[in-house]
């Protein structure tokens, strides 16, 4: 067990923070998995499935660690499959529907760039476990972003039809990005302890990177709106329930089932 910068009493804060990261990966991985067998071409099917696999891998490490921090003996499967709707702490962007391929790509670019900037900084975390997970994950996230970015440019700077579709997906998903960077007490506590990077720093780097990509893709960055989503506090859109119904079906029907 690696050193934790917190006393036992404060462990729940770290537990909730790790859940935010792990649930983002888990829910997005589950979403991408819906594409398997349905993507526009075999290569894209393979890519989305591979990215989903990496994300579920991140979730396994993070949720296992969350269980260790919590100290109640829950493992990755207990945490992934036996929590209720309001106990998932992913930002709401991750659970938004796949839509068409363009909308999936837009959601992916926004989250890949967020994970890249977050994990690159988290490699210097005072929490050894999170630093190790971040260092491992960021290597894979770079390849995710290369894929999603290349498609964003290809579709945005493509035909009038593809351009219109990704611009409209961007307009629809942009409001959800505000939550990624809405810093709350928990984010500040983690940053003060050196566990997590400061969200405003992550935001600035993310915005620069997104602006570059949007310019290349000839897309227009929508205006920021007031923040109205609180997935990080367990308040979700209607979509999460449907994801959980499918994802948890087996564990709920056959409790403690194992492969």
């Amino acid at each position: 067990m690696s050193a934790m910068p917190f006393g036992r009493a404060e462990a729940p804060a770290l537990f909730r923070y790790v859940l935010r990261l792990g649930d983002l990966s888990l829910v997005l991985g589950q979403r991408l998995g819906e594409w398997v067998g349905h993507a526009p071409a075999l290569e894209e099917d393979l890519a989305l499935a591979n990215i989903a696999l990496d994300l579920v891998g991140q979730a396994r490490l993070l949720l296992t660690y969350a269980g260790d921090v919590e100290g109640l003996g829950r493992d990755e499967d207990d945490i992934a499959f036996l929590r209720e709707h309001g106990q998932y702490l992913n930002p709401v962007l991750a659970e938004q529907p796949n839509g068409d391929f363009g909308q999936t790509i837009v959601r992916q670019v926004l989250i890949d760039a967020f994970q890249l900037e977050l994990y690159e900084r988290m490699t210097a975390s005072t929490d050894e476990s999170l630093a190790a997970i971040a260092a491992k994950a960021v290597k894979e996230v770079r390849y995710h972003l290369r894929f999603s970015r290349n498609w964003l440019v290809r579709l945005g700077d493509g035909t009038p039809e593809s351009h219109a579709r990704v611009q409209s997906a961007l307009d629809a998903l942009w409001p959800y990005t505000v939550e990624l960077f809405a810093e709350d007490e928990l984010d500040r506590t983690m940053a003060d302890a050196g566990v997590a990077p400061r969200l405003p720093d992550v935001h600035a780097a993310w915005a620069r990177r997104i602006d570059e990509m949007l310019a290349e893709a000839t897309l227009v960055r929508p205006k920021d709106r007031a923040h109205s989503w609180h997935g990080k506090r367990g308040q979700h859109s209607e979509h999460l329930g449907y994801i959980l119904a499918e994802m948890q079906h087996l564990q709920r029907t056959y409790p403690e089932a194992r492969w």
Partner: protein
Amino acid sequence: MNLARDDRRPAVDLRLSLAWTALASVEDPEIPAVSIVDLGLIRCVDLRPDGTLEVGLSPTYVGCPATDVIRDSVAEALRDVGVGQFVVTTVLSPPWSSDWITAEGRRKLKIYGIVPPEQSAPSMREVLRNLKPVACPRCHSTETECVSEFGSTPCKALHRCRACLEPFEYFKCI
């Protein structure tokens, strides 16, 4: 890797070298041409003070389904050669890099038809720049193209040679 030799305890030496022999016989389930030692997945073979032999194993990709198979194969191989009490642990830090594939591993990959990785890509900038053509492992032409950035396993991309028209896989730099 800690292979500290202690002349006063030849039994220790024997267990460590037995363990390494066993590990070198474990193939990667997805790429049977190379062993897990060739791939640089074994991070340590140590003896704990209580006499338990510890083998530290790194995953290539966090979600790679082969990881569990490899762990089971390692345990089986260690049992078969009789190294005594052992434990297989997961080592995440520092993260596994394709740079750790040995020269022997690279040679075997190439013969198998998989182009070994060139050098690791430590930044986003380099990953984006990393799209230069890869030479075909069969005819060595550099007239090749990337067909799919993600291949049949998390660690590989799919390419095609325009000269000999054969598809081939490229081990990604990570």
